[in-house]
């Protein structure tokens, strides 16, 4: 299960703001993006990454899901992981639409997708300019309490290896990383003596 942690650091805002400039009126846009500003703790990325830019409309979520699932497959994740990664990113976007933007559907969301070096995994950076999340909500809720709602954060943390949320007055950034678990050759021992 991934660890959720929060950062209030204000590094590299200029670079992020520049990356956020976009054409008005377009609903969803894909491009090979410049690498977004790096942050401490972030895994190093290859230069090429995919940038998806959408309006905060729930109708567009299926478009992003289709892309993310394909991208995860290209990176080499097995089918089950592709579905899970797609779910995690979808839940992150749902939270942005519902909570950061308060169900306003004309706001901008950017998703930077990067392959980690040597095909070791995939990283997503979800950027919004809405209301920062309440830290209390980031902890999710007790799953023994069977009731509707509050599952999104739990699902994201269950699926992703790293979940790092950085709120700020300018923009909120959620970084999600999933590492590819490569099968060991038959007979090979784990360096740590087993898992």
């Amino acid at each position, binding site marked *: 299960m991934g660890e959720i942690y929060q950062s209030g650091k204000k590094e590299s805002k200029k670079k992020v703001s520049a990356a956020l400039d976009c054409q008005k009126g377009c609903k969803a846009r894909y491009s090979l993006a410049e690498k977004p500003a790096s942050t401490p703790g972030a895994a190093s990325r290859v230069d090429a990454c995919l940038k998806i830019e959408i309006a905060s409309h729930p109708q567009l*979520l299926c478009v992003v899901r289709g892309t993310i699932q394909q991208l995860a497959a290209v990176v080499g994740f097995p089918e089950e992981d592709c579905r899970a990664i797609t779910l995690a990113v979808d839940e992150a976007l749902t939270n942005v639409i519902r909570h950061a933007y308060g169900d306003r559907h004309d706001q901008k969301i950017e998703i930077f997708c990067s392959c980690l070096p040597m095909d070791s995994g995939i990283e997503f950076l979800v950027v919004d300019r809405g209301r920062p999340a309440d830290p209390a909500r980031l902890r999710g809720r007790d799953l023994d309490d069977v009731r509707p709602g509050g599952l999104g954060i739990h699902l994201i943390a269950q699926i992703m290896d790293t979940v790092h949320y950085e709120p700020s007055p300018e923009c909120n950034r959620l970084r999600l990383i999933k590492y590819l678990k490569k099968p060991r050759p038959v007979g090979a021992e784990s360096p740590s003596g087993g898992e």
Partner: protein
Amino acid sequence: MAHIQVSIRNVGNATVIDVVGDIDLYNSPEMRKTLMGVLKEQNAARAVINLTRVRYIDSSGVASLVEALKVARERNARLILFGLSKAAREVLELSRLIKVFEVYENEEQALGAN
């Protein structure tokens, strides 16, 4: 774009709700509305949800199912699911809710459940 279809049919003493499409933030309100109508307005004693043609379900969809389950229990009705895709099953497992629901493989089993 990506609308779901939700339809209702009566089979014996059960009301079967057929759902077709992805259940996400955009579509889940429609499914929720139908489920609430079946349980609260039609007073169905046995609501059976056909998820055979649902390829994807997110937390908002799961929340709608949980809400429907609670309403069903309050009314001494049964809420039954069948035909879960791998994706739907995985979400319910990750949510630790798979055992909360009555789940069957197919319609025949769901309708025949005692």
